[in-house]
């Protein structure tokens, strides 16, 4: 396995960890082991989905994001709200209220990521017209799904659409427009993404498909929520900022929003990481080669279900649905109508660094040695009880066998094997004790 440390937003708070098996059992890439009574995250396998954050009763799994204190580092600050932020405020009729409230937190400007989504939507719609594309093309918007593919479905990397995330495009647009309006230099402008998930934080710090992220920092939606909530009711009609995205851009907050914005009938929208895994398995088998587009969201309901959101994801999805309907009444334009072709050329929209298979599931770089390890693994599995109890600290008996083969665990760490051995030893001792002197 790669020894190089990879940056992850998802971390463990050692003090709070009890060493239980909850996170162990729920990790979709088997990236957690419990050793010496504490959980450990295997860096090369973690995809920052945040499932462990959700499942941990002891709050020992945390997402490291930036804080509002980072605002000090820049002369000018722009807030980049993910559309899922709007879903946090039940009964919200107009996104303009949230934009105004955000500005009051100390930002010089607010730029909706939904506007970036409009541009990305148009770019994807045009991309889909190119001939000879792999089927289905896979959305690159959810960074957890992209990393999941890198770790578990490396053969599907060519299917990932080579267009940047709305957050990145929005950051470039925000900075460019601000610099033009205020006659300042790009490096003076900090762009702060208000994030629903740790995966976006990781995507900023160690980007995939591009050399450097255009976003300066990511601030957790949870942190901002508490500050915004009391402000929302105080915003007066005249202070409200005008939302400038289409209704479709706002819709990206929830699952199927991306698909609706590219007007692709022949698409499949899947939410929830286990559901995404099931469908990616089928794509791998070519069972879904009749599809044009696959939109996978790691979180249930889409971004509104992110681990750093406050509101129940179903309620948030409903709020988004109403906001989209309201916005559509005021402006019925689609991204294709709203985004001028010139914008597509003006900004850098393509992912230009190849996404490589991550290799974290490999037993060895040398296939001959990997084969020996796999054989040995099979022998060990045949001898394990198959309870998948997690007592050894590995999520399943199979993963435990893999850990033994890789030198990370010992067979007697299986409590059931140990019991059998103790029983045999006890019987031997009884036999010995009963032996009569000849």
């Amino acid at each position, binding site marked *: 396995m790669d020894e190089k440390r990879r940056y992850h937003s998802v971390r463990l708070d050692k003090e709070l960890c009890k060493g239980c098996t909850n996170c162990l059992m729920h990790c979709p890439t088997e990236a957690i082991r419990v050793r010496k009574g504490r959980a450990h995250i295997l860096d090369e396998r973690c995809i920052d989905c945040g499932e462990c954050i959700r499942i941990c009763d002891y709050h020992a799994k945390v997402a490291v994001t930036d804080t509002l204190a980072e605002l000090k580092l820049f002369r000018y600050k722009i807030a980049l709200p993910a559309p899922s932020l709007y879903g946090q405020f039940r009964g919200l009729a107009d996104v303009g209220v949230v934009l105004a409230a955000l500005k009051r937190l100390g930002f010089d400007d607010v730029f909706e990521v939904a506007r970036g989504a409009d541009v990305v939507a148009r770019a994807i719609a045009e991309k889909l017209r190119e001939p000879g594309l792999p089927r289905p093309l896979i959305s690159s918007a959810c960074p957890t799904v992209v990393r999941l593919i890198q770790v578990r479905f490396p053969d599907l990397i060519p299917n990932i659409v080579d267009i940047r995330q709305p957050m990145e495009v929005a950051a470039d647009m925000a900075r460019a427009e601000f610099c033009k309006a205020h006659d300042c230099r790009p490096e003076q402008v900090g762009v702060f993404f208000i994030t629903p998930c740790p995966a976006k934080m990781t995507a900023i710090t160690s980007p995939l498909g591009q050399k450097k992220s255009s976003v300066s920092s990511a601030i957790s939606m949870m942190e901002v929520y508490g500050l915004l909530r009391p402000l929302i009711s105080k915003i007066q009609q005249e202070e409200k900022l005008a939302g400038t995205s289409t209704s479709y851009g706002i819709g990206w907050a929830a699952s199927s929003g991306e698909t609706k914005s590219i007007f692709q009938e022949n698409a499949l929208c899947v939410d929830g990481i286990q559901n995404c895994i099931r469908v990616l398995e089928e794509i*791998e*088998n070519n069972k879904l080669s009749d599809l044009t587009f696959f939109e996978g969201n790691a979180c249930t309901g889409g971004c509104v279900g992110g681990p750093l959101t406050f509101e129940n994801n179903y309620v948030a999805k409903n709020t988004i649905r109403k906001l989209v309907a309201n916005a559509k009444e005021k402006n019925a334009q689609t991204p294709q109508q709203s985004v001028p072709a010139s914008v597509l050329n003006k900004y850098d929209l393509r992912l230009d660094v190849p996404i490589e298979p991550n290799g974290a599931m490999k037993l060895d770089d040398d296939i001959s040695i990997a084969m020996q390890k796999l054989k040995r693994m099979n022998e060990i599995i045949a001898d394990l009880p198959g309870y998948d109890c997690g007592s050894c600290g590995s999520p399943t008996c199979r993963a435990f066998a893999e850990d033994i083969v890789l030198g990370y665990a010992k067979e007697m760490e299986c409590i059931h094997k140990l019991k059998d051995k103790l029983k045999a030893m006890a019987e031997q001792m009884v036999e010995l004790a009963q032996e009569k002197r000849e």
Partner: protein
Amino acid sequence: MSALLHEEYPVESGDYDRAGEASADIKRKLKQLGVPAAVLRRVSVASYEVELNLVIHSDGGTLTLEVSPEAVRLISADRGPGIPDVELAMREGWSTANETARSLGFGAGMGLPNMKRNADDFDIVSAVGEGTTIRMGFRLS
């Protein structure tokens, strides 16, 4: 040269409940071996097709995976009923899938042509009353 890794998967006729499990395990093993992504994709497609063929068309049989550093091999051997006209069966769109299979979305007549397209070498031998054996090879180097 003899295969270094040899796995056998029994596949029963009409067992839709387990259909796809053998190919899923094959995929997982090949990923653990670090088989290159492009080859992995082709083996995935072919192994799934051949496993489903055993479920849908055969009287049951065995799917075998063999891996050496040079190649991945898949061998499907069934207990019947055998294909009367192999040439016809190899044509795209030709299928004898029954209603159950069709209602589950199979039977497009692309199974065998798909296997042949994805494998580097493909061989099919069939005798009515005896069974069908399909051998596929995928080069690793």
